[in-house]
């Protein structure tokens, strides 16, 4: 976490409306979203977003509909222009770029996967996949080999000459991902990429993404409204509400210490045993007698299964071959009960 962030957003504001710059001052003085709409007829999209996205990590931006998450991701490649703020990618302020420079960044640094797939219906799967290269003017033979390589990687070989409309939703999104991978960019923007898919296919696609990520180490910005999905994928989780960041950080940390009733509500519905990992509930190594060794990355569900429900057991926590801590089953069971916001009373929220 010490390295320079790949993408960083600084004081980003977006207000929808004709006089956005004028009403920005009101927002900065603390006017709420509802008041802004009632008094000025402008919609507050994003307010004071500060997020750092590290290279090689999956940053998940989560929020309910209307929380501004799709607006946020479209700022990264300036499909939407911010009202104020800086968008810095590889140390370069995207806001300062000319039209050509912006196109260069869109072609060479960022690729995007869309909720509704957004494939070209009149082109075949392989042509769709090769599209980012065609845009850059890469020779056709090379386009074709690259496209076929990635189609094979996402499990679509044999469908190269089909048209998108002939494929199921899950397969179309695989084309969408293959297209983004063919672009061979460091940054991948995924806008609710799996939200339109049914649950089983969604799990498949999440696994595919994690598998690809293990291999490719891209900087992925993933938008979702599904907390389970967010917790599964995220290295860094950003939770948005009404266009503002409520809490951000490591997902396990957010789960263990929600800082806001809004997040507690979110967190209370999920299967904590499956999401929480040993790392989050372990204690420093003190004891010497253990019922066995567990890995630091195991989830609690697997431990409960292993202990057979016996809460008196203690386990030694291993990170690879080194013991790093110990785990008491009693603590584990306590961790399964959703915690109240630690700062709730202090903030009087």
């Amino acid at each position, binding site marked *: 976490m010490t390295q320079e962030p790949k993408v960083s957003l600084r004081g980003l504001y977006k207000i929808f409306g004709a006089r956005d710059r004028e009403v920005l001052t009101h927002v900065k003085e603390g006017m709420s979203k509802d008041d802004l709409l009632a008094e000025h007829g402008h919609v507050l999209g994003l307010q004071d977003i500060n997020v750092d996205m590290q290279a090689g990590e999956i940053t998940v931006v989560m929020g309910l509909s209307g929380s501004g998450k799709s607006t946020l991701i479209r700022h990264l490649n300036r499909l939407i222009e911010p009202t104020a703020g800086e968008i810095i990618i590889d140390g370069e302020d995207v806001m300062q770029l000319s039209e050509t420079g912006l196109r260069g960044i869109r072609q060479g640094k960022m690729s995007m996967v869309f909720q509704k797939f957004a*494939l070209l219906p009149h082109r075949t799967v392989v042509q769709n996949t090769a599209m980012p290269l065609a845009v850059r003017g890469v020779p056709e033979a090379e386009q074709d080999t690259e496209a076929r390589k990635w189609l094979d990687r996402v499990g679509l070989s044999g469908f190269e000459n089909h048209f998108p409309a002939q494929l199921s939703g899950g397969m179309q999104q695989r084309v969408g991902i293959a297209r983004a991978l063919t672009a061979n960019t460091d940054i991948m923007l995924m806008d609710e990429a799996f939200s339109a898919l049914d649950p089983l296919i969604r799990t498949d696609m999440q696994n595919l993404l994690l598998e690809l990520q293990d291999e490719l180490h891209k900087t992925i910005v993933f938008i979702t409204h599904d907390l389970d999905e967010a917790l599964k994928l995220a290295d860094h989780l950003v939770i948005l509400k009404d266009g503002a960041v409520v809490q951000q950080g490591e997902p396990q940390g957010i789960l263990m210490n929600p800082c806001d009733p809004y997040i507690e509500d979110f967190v209370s519905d999920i299967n904590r045993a499956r999401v929480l990992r040993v790392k989050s509930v372990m204690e420093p190594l003190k004891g010497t007698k253990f019922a066995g060794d567990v890995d630091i990355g195991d989830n609690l569900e697997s431990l409960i299964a292993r202990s057979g429900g016996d809460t008196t057991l203690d386990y030694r926590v291993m990170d690879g071959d080194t013991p790093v801590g110990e785990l008491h089953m009693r603590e584990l069971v306590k961790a399964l009960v959703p915690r109240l916001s630690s700062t709730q009373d202090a903030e009087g929220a």
Partner: protein
Amino acid sequence: MAFYDGLFETLGLSEWCEGEGSSAPMSMADLLAQNSGDEVAGEAFPFPSLDNLSEACPAIIQSRDVTKGIEDGFLAAKPALKSFLDPITQPLSWLLDGALWTFAAIPWFVMVPLLVFIAYWASRSIGVTIFVAFSIMLLGFVDHYDVAMQTLSIIFVCTGISVALGVPIGIAMSKSDRLQKSLVPVLDLLQTLPTFVYLIPLIFLFSVTESKLYGIAIILYAIVPVIRLTDLGIRLVDQDVIEAANAFGMTSRQKLTGVELPLALPNIMAGINQTIMMSLAMVVIASLVSAPGLGVNVLRGIRNLELGVGIVAGIGIVLLAVILDRVSKAALTRVDNTRMKH
């Protein structure tokens, strides 16, 4: 005297009224009344029209001065208009004459198979192709082959020019809301203006012996649907796909040729189909201003009360219309099916 005399007196305009103006009779009824010495028994409360006002106040112009003014204005502008329009429309005359000559010069035993082949190539449908062959043979059989070919050649040229001009205009319209707002009333006007009205100013501008006269009339009438549907088609392209094109850094040109036009193609084709149908409708009316073809026979049927001639030519037009419609529609569905596979 006139009903509105009192009005001008109370307004104190009597003096201005007397200043000038003619006291010439305004209608045959007036003239008769003047000669017989009787007052015309007017309405109790006439509408304050120019004529009625002018009766009370000769300084006010009469309605016939309005139409005369339009005519004079047009005639005054004619030399300038002509010197500008003549050169740029001249190629149209050449194209039309050339097409007419070519269609006439190619012998039927080459032309018929060629047309049948074109029909097959465009529609890829055996049924449509057989129908086309049958219809052309039928027209030839009743000795209407030559006139049908004249009509067809005019339609080919006019549709071609309409598409060549209409598609770019439609694209420009879809890109600019302001252009769209200003062009839509013009298109509405072109579409609603009675077809005969097109001919009147054109007759003044060009000589009736020039082919461009009817060419322009047909193109003005037929170009509208292709413009409208190109504009509509591009505006209807899925915004998600456009967003994807933007996100991958396409230039405007790449977007237009790679995304917008292909996706708008079904709509554009529908526009071309309409354009073909409308040029056929207009080419019949344009026979009034010396456009050759089946329309001339229809006109002859009306003028000379030759019922049979008119009806056979009319059926010939219907056959041509059905041929053109079926072939272009079949081409449209083919494009829809092979490229979208819905």
